[in-house]
């Protein structure tokens, strides 16, 4: 116990009880304020959902939630991958381009009829994404190219290949079997089911496995991680590869939903995925954050976007509101962290 603390204690104990109570009340108020700040995002989301639901009959319908989940699913896959990459202190700018390239590759295969062709299309599209991700991973982990540059280069190259394969045109005329990939098993569309599974697996991997511990260690304190025997190169290579595979999954499901493979699909998605992660409290410095935070991030972007459309808010103002949410969320987060330190 330090001197000043002791002093405070003594003063406090000798103070009249009414002052003590007042102090308690202030503390409680501070606690409430901190609680509100800490959980401001879920609270905003909740308020928004309740307000929208009360003011508009169409919001609280099953089909509207399905629309929202379907709309966020491409970003969801990317945000999960991006979270893993950012946790290691990296960044992956290639996922938007991967969505386009994987969609084009899948579409080219899926122009052939049949269940086998559709299967190959899905596997091929995802694999191409993994290949791009692995390339970035190799560049970052072995060749020591900074992640920003490595993934930007991979993105540009991937886009180029996509343009070459598709000659810049939309690849349409896809088989019914492939289009069924974005259809439903019963009332649940496959992209939504896949999204839930991916989130659950990523959460398990990051919180319950050695791999997850190492991901946090690499981003939090690379020196200590190395000393502790973490294979930093391997972890870095893996997270970019996973991010690429998820980008491929995103591209394939989106291609099926859009009934065409278009190389420009996914342009700018990487920034939305990064925004979702940071809104959810994933630190760009690495080592801090969670998949569930990223889930909250893309759900807020999706629900607010959907709600603003239902409220018929001008697209111009929608952009402003979205920007304020992103900055506001990160500001709150960094403010709380400073306070904690």
């Amino acid at each position, binding site marked *: 116990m330090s001197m000043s603390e002791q002093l405070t204690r003594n003063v406090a104990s000798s103070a009249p009880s009414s002052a003590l109570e007042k102090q308690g009340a202030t503390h409680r108020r501070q606690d409430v304020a901190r609680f509100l700040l800490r959980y401001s995002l879920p609270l905003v989301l909740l308020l928004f959902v*309740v*307000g929208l639901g009360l003011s508009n009959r169409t919001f609280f*319908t099953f089909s509207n939630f399905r629309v929202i989940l379907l709309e966020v699913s491409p970003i969801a896959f990317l945000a999960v991958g991006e979270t893993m990459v950012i946790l290691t202190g990296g960044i992956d700018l290639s996922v938007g381009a991967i969505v386009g390239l994987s969609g084009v590759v899948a579409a080219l295969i899926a122009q052939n009829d049949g269940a086998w062709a559709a299967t190959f299309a899905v596997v091929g599209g995802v694999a191409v994404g993994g290949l791009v991700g692995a390339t970035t991973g190799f560049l970052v982990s072995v060749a020591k190219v900074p992640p920003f540059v490595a993934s930007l280069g991979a993105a540009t190259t991937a886009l180029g290949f996509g343009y070459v394969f598709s000659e810049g*045109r939309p690849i*349409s005329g896809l088989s019914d079997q492939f289009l069924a990939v974005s259809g439903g098993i019963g009332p649940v569309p496959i992209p939504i089911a896949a999204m839930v599974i991916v989130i659950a697996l990523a959460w398990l991997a990051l919180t319950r496995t050695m791999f997850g511990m190492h991901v946090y260690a690499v981003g939090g304190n690379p020196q200590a991680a190395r000393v502790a025997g973490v294979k930093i190169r391997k972890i870095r290579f893996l997270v970019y590869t996973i991010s690429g595979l998820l980008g491929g999954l995103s591209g394939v499901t989106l291609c099926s939903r859009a*009934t065409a493979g*278009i190389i420009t699909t996914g342009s700018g998605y990487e920034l939305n995925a990064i925004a979702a992660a940071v809104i959810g409290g994933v630190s760009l410095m690495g080592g801090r954050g969670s998949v569930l935070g990223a889930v909250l991030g893309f759900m807020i972007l999706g629900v607010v976007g959907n709600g603003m459309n239902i409220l018929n808010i001008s697209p*111009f103002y929608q952009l402003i509101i979205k920007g304020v949410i992103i900055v506001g969320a990160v500001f709150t987060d960094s403010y709380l962290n400073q306070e904690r330190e």
Partner: protein
Amino acid sequence: MKSWKCLTALALGAATALGSGVVPASADKAHPVIGMTVYFMSSWVAWGQQGADAVAKANNVDLRWVSANQDVNTQISQIQQFINQKVDAIIIAAVNSSTLGPQIEAAKAAGIPVIATNMVIFGKEANDLVSYVGPDDVAAGETEAKYAIDAIGGKGGIVAMQGALGYSAEIDRTQGIKNMLAKHPEVKLLAMQPGNWDRPQSYNLMQDWLSRYGSDVKALVAENDDMAIGAGQALKDKGVSIAVTAIDGIKDGLRAVKNGTMTETNLQDAAIELGMAVQVAVDHLQGKEVPQKALLKMLEVTPANVDHYYDQLYVHPDDFIKGLPDLVRKNLASGDYSFQ
């Protein structure tokens, strides 16, 4: 004003959204709700929105306007959302011509008429549309190519700058240019490359072409004004003066025709086009006959008539918008959609 109201409502918290006067979708015939999704709020679309709003107001329509920000996925969701809201009609300016089949089918199955505008819908789902209101891009491509060919005396080398590949406007305008070139074998197409509707990219492309072909280039046929303006800057930097033709008739385009950096452009008036799409939707809801395909012929703008159009659209736009609902009705009634 309404958006301000909504913005304030949001800022004060979702609870106040209760009081912001959100009209439930399914409304009566006298006050129909029309959902309109556009690919992106470009300056052209923003001008079109003014026209659409004016026509909507004149017809007591509650127009729900959303922008897809060039994202296919967003637009798909927006259409599904309109279907969920049970709007009375949906108007689509597609991000991509090949991607909306299932949504157009779903709207039809839900009994909601769909009108496409500005961007063609490819494939069999085009048959599910009540109407398509859009520009005659093939004709515009032919007109601008013809003007350039005439300007260089029917022979010599020309270059053509395409829009972003795969968009219906690019495909059709390119077709028009090729149609006209096929009729003039003495004209040599030196190069044809996409400038992606973009000024800076077109500036670079034109520079490269000038280095490569030099004084062999007698004319530039660009598929929109922005590219012609970007390329025009490169021409100016090199001190080269050739015929430059384009399409769109945006403010800067007409200005360029006025000051001579552009030779000709073809006016595609967004306010008329998107306004007409709204009118067609209203007419259909009222049980009137509507054209299956309303192709708007673009107006050729040359140094001789540029002042008139510039004055009409960019000096007194409010007067133009005021008269627009009547103009659109007149155009539709006549079957010739070129009154301006």
